[in-house]
C-alpha cells in the first residue's frame, strides 16, 4: 500500500496548521481535474464547484483532526473520494437513486454531514452567539469541539501551565454562551 511522500506529508502538516496558502494551492491544483471528473455525473457547473468546495473544507477539517496523519493514499485521491461521496449524497437526495458501488474502497472517510435545512433552532442561536464570543473562548471551543483536540493538547497549543485553569476557562466560556442565549 502506498505511503505518503515527504512532500505530501509536509502539505498535510501545513493543512493541519490551517495555512491559507497551502489550502489555496491545493484548491487550485485539483479544481479543474475535479470538474472534469464530476462532468461524468452530468451535474451543473455551479453545483460541481459547490461540492468541490465542500470537499476541500472536509479535507482541511480532517487534516486538523489528525485523520490524515497516516494517510495511505495521495491527497488528490483522498480529496476526490470525499468529492465522490458528496456527489453521490447529493444525487441520492435529489434523485432517490440507490447506489451500490465500491466508492470508498481503499480510503476511509470520516466526515459528519449535517442537514442544514433541518438544523435546530438551538444550533442557529448558538451559531450567532458564538460570533459574539471573543478570545480565548473562540480558540478553545474551536480546538476542543471542531478540531477534537484533547484538553492536554490544547494546554500545549495555548501554553497553559495548568489543566485546571484551562478547564475553568472552558467552563467560563460555556457559561458566557449560556448567558448570551438566555
Amino acid at each position, binding site marked *: 500500500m502506498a505511503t505518503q511522500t515527504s512532500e505530501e506529508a509536509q502539505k498535510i502538516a501545513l493543512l493541519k496548521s490551517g495555512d491559507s496558502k497551502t489550502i489555496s494551492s491545493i484548491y487550485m491544483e485539483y479544481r479543474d481535474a475535479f470538474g472534469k471528473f464530476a462532468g461524468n455525473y452530468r451535474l451543473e457547473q455551479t453545483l460541481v464547484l459547490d461540492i468541490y468546495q465542500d470537499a*476541500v*473544507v472536509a479535507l482541511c477539517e480532517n487534516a486538523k483532526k489528525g485523520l490524515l496523519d497516516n494517510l495511505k493514499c495521495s491527497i488528490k485521491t483522498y480529496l476526490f473520494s470525499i468529492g465522490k461521496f458528496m456527489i453521490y449524497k447529493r444525487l441520492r437526495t435529489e434523485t432517490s437513486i440507490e447506489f451500490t458501488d465500491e466508492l470508498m474502497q481503499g480510503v476511509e472517510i470520516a466526515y459528519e454531514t449535517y442537514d442544514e435545512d433541518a438544523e435546530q433552532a438551538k444550533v442557529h442561536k448558538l451559531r450567532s452567539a458564538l*460570533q459574539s464570543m*471573543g478570545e480565548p473562548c473562540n480558540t478553545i471551543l474551536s480546538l476542543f*469541539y*471542531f478540531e*477534537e483536540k484533547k484538553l492536554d493538547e490544547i494546554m500545549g497549543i495555548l501554553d497553559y501551565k495548568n489543566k485546571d485553569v484551562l478547564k475553568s476557562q472552558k467552563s467560563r466560556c460555556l457559561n458566557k454562551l*449560556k448567558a448570551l442565549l438566555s
Partner: protein
Amino acid sequence: MTTHDELLDLFFENALSKEQEERFHWLLKNDIVFKEAFEFQRTLKTAVTLNERQKLKESLRQLEDDQKAKKEKVVAFSWKSYIAAASIVLVFFTAYQFWPKANNPDELFVENYEIFPNLVAPQVRGNNDEELKQKAFEAYEMTKFEQAVQDFSNLIALGQIEYAYFYRGQAYMAMGQFEEAQSDFMQHIAMNEKNLIVEAHWYMGLCELKRNHEEAAIDHFKIVSQSNENAFQSQAARLLDALRRK
C-alpha cells in the same frame, strides 16, 4: 471519582474507559441535569463545526471570485487594451482613494478607530438616576474616561444598564483596556435587542484587531459589512479587503 464535567470532557475527547462509559450512559438516562449539559455541548459541537466550515467555505468562494476577476482582467486587456488600461488606472485611483493605506493590524486600527459619539445623554436634569447618567456622559464627553468608567459602573450597579455597557466599553477602549472593552460590548450585545448592536460588533472587531486576533476581527467586520443600518458598513468592507489581502 470522575466528576460530571470530566465525564463530558472525556466523552468529547473520545477517551471514556469502559467503566466511565457505563456511568455516562446511566447518567444520561437518570440525571436530567447531566443530560441537559450533554445536549448543550453536543449542540455546541454542531454549531462550532458549522461555523468553522462556513468560514473556510467563504474563503474558498473568495478565492474563486479572485481567480475569476483575474481571468476577466486578462481577457479584457487583450481585447481592448486601451480601455482596460484606463480601467486599471481608475481601479488604482479608486483603491488609493477608498482602501485603507495599510494592512498592519496596528495601523489599520489607528486608521479606523474613532470613539463613538454620545448619542444618549439626557438634556434635562431629572431624578437621581438621570443625574448620574448625565454625569457619566459628561465625563465621557470631556474625555475623563476613568471617571466615566466609574459612573457607568454605578449606573450598572443600579440596574440602569441601557447603553451603560456600550459606553463603558468605549471608555475602556479609549484608555487602551481592550479586553475589558470587549467584555462590555459583548454584554451590550447580550442585553440589548436593537440599538447599537452592529456598532458594538464594529468596536469588538477593532479590539480584536488591536490584539492581533485578525480572524476574530474578520468575523465581526463581516457582521458589520453585511448589515445595512449602520455607519460603519463600507468602512468594515474596506477593512475586510485589507485583511484578506494580507
